[in-house]
């Protein structure tokens, strides 16, 4: 056995020169089978057709789930293994206790900022008597903390991420995902240990938005660009209202909080333009969340959800 292996290695070393420079075994290679190519292309097209026409209950969904159960834990493990290395730049900037202080202050800062940003919205809500019940609902939310372990490549032209919490952590499809700064997206599908989150900047994402200043409602569409230039388009329902620059946009909320709970800050208005033909106002929104560097996120779950990890309740306690 060993002898055979040695022999083979020797042959390979001798052949390496030819591999990069020579003609090799061109004549030996069999002509590629056209029928195989046709079969593979047809298989791909079948898969596309199945998934495209099947919608949410296509047979591909169960395959996705199976593959997700296998790859999810591997992605989580890989992300955990490299986390110390991705944190190295931070470590150089500020070490140990300093680093903790900065993180704590940053968290406090963004909490205060989001409070300030939603002040208009909160005041209006109270005025409309809607406030009391909505605030009570607000208090009913709890968060399951999770980390982003995988990002879809931009080459796939869809902005979705994997987080390391799944159905065992109490997560179900159509739950709101937020972080310190604001709205991140919604849960698309879950496996037992991971969940796929569609970011609000994805072109498929539509979120009901409300301008905090005027309570005007509209729809937020993603533009499909992550990173610093990631923007959302806000299409207002009422053409007579013009949102001002730097107005805050929060979520409008859906029935039973699925897929989006109400009052989560989304972003601020950077510019407004009107389209005469469509007779609507469009505003460009700069999201508060930096989608290029997502890490720790929270999934909004009903209070008292059974989970495999500590759940942050609305009053800040851990359960």
């Amino acid at each position, binding site marked *: 056995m060993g002898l055979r292996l040695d022999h083979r290695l020797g042959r390979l070393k001798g052949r390496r020169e030819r591999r990069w420079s020579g003609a090799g075994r061109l004549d030996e290679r069999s002509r590629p089978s056209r029928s195989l190519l046709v079969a593979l292309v047809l298989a791909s097209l079948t898969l596309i057709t199945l998934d495209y026409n099947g919608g949410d209950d296509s047979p591909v969904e169960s395959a996705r789930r199976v593959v997700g159960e296998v790859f999810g834990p591997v992605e989580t493990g*890989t992300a955990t293994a490299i986390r110390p290395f991705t944190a190295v730049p931070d470590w150089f900037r500020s070490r140990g206790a300093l680093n903790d202080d900065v993180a704590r202050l940053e968290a406090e800062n963004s909490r205060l900022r989001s409070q300030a940003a939603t002040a208009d919205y909160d005041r209006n809500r109270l005025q409309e008597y809607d406030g009391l019940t909505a605030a009570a609902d607000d208090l009913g939310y709890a968060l399951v903390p999770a980390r982003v372990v995988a990002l879809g490549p931009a080459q796939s032209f869809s902005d979705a991420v994997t987080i390391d919490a799944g159905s065992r952590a109490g997560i179900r499809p159509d739950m709101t995902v937020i972080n310190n700064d604001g709205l991140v997206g919604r849960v698309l599908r879950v496996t037992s240990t991971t969940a796929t989150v569609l970011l609000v900047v*994805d072109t498929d994402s539509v979120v009901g938005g409300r301008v905090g200043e005027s309570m005007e409602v509209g729809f937020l569409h993603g533009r499909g660009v992550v990173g610093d230039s990631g923007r959302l388009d806000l299409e207002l329902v009422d053409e007579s209202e013009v949102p001002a620059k730097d107005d805050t946009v929060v979520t409008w909320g859906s029935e039973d909080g699925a897929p989006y709970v109400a009052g989560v800050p989304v972003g601020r208005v950077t510019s407004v333009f009107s389209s005469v033909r469509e007779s609507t106002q469009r505003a460009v929104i700069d999201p508060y969340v930096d989608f290029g560097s997502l890490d720790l996120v929270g999934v909004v779950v009903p209070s008292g959800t059974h989970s495999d990890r500590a759940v942050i309740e609305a009053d800040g306690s851990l359960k």
Partner: protein
Amino acid sequence: MSLMRGVVAALAVSLALVLQVSVFPHLAWQGIVPNLCLLVVVGAALTRGPQFAAVLGFLAGVALDLAPPADHVAGRWALALVVVGYLAGRVRQDVRPTAMAVVATVAASSFVGTSVFAISGLVLRDPALGVPDLLRVILVAVVWDVLLTPFVLPLVMRMFQRLEPARTA
């Protein structure tokens, strides 16, 4: 031996996939990462020919389509990588696979692969992105893939070469 080859190829594709979604986003430029799965398929094509590469491309594509966090219509990457595997395998019969030729093949494959994916999206209206945005992503992806070629392709090609069943020279 061919079972062994299949297992190793599947492992290589899985490793490439996990690195692509979990590690490289930290280095990504605007979310664009090197397409390692495509590099493995091209490596297979250059050493093993179009037939093996097309099959491997199909498997790698299905994995890319189904593994989280993928959310596009499944089968699109499968189609793109089958085309890439077949074309890259054919190229080798006309061009001498010098280092330059390998880089050129990777660049062409990356361009064709991402383009096929993007065009299938335009046909299905899956991403509502404009053509300039698509082109920008495709070109940056080509640059990324070419940059990674000297690190990935020699490894992949050596691996497939070693797994070659004994043939009469």
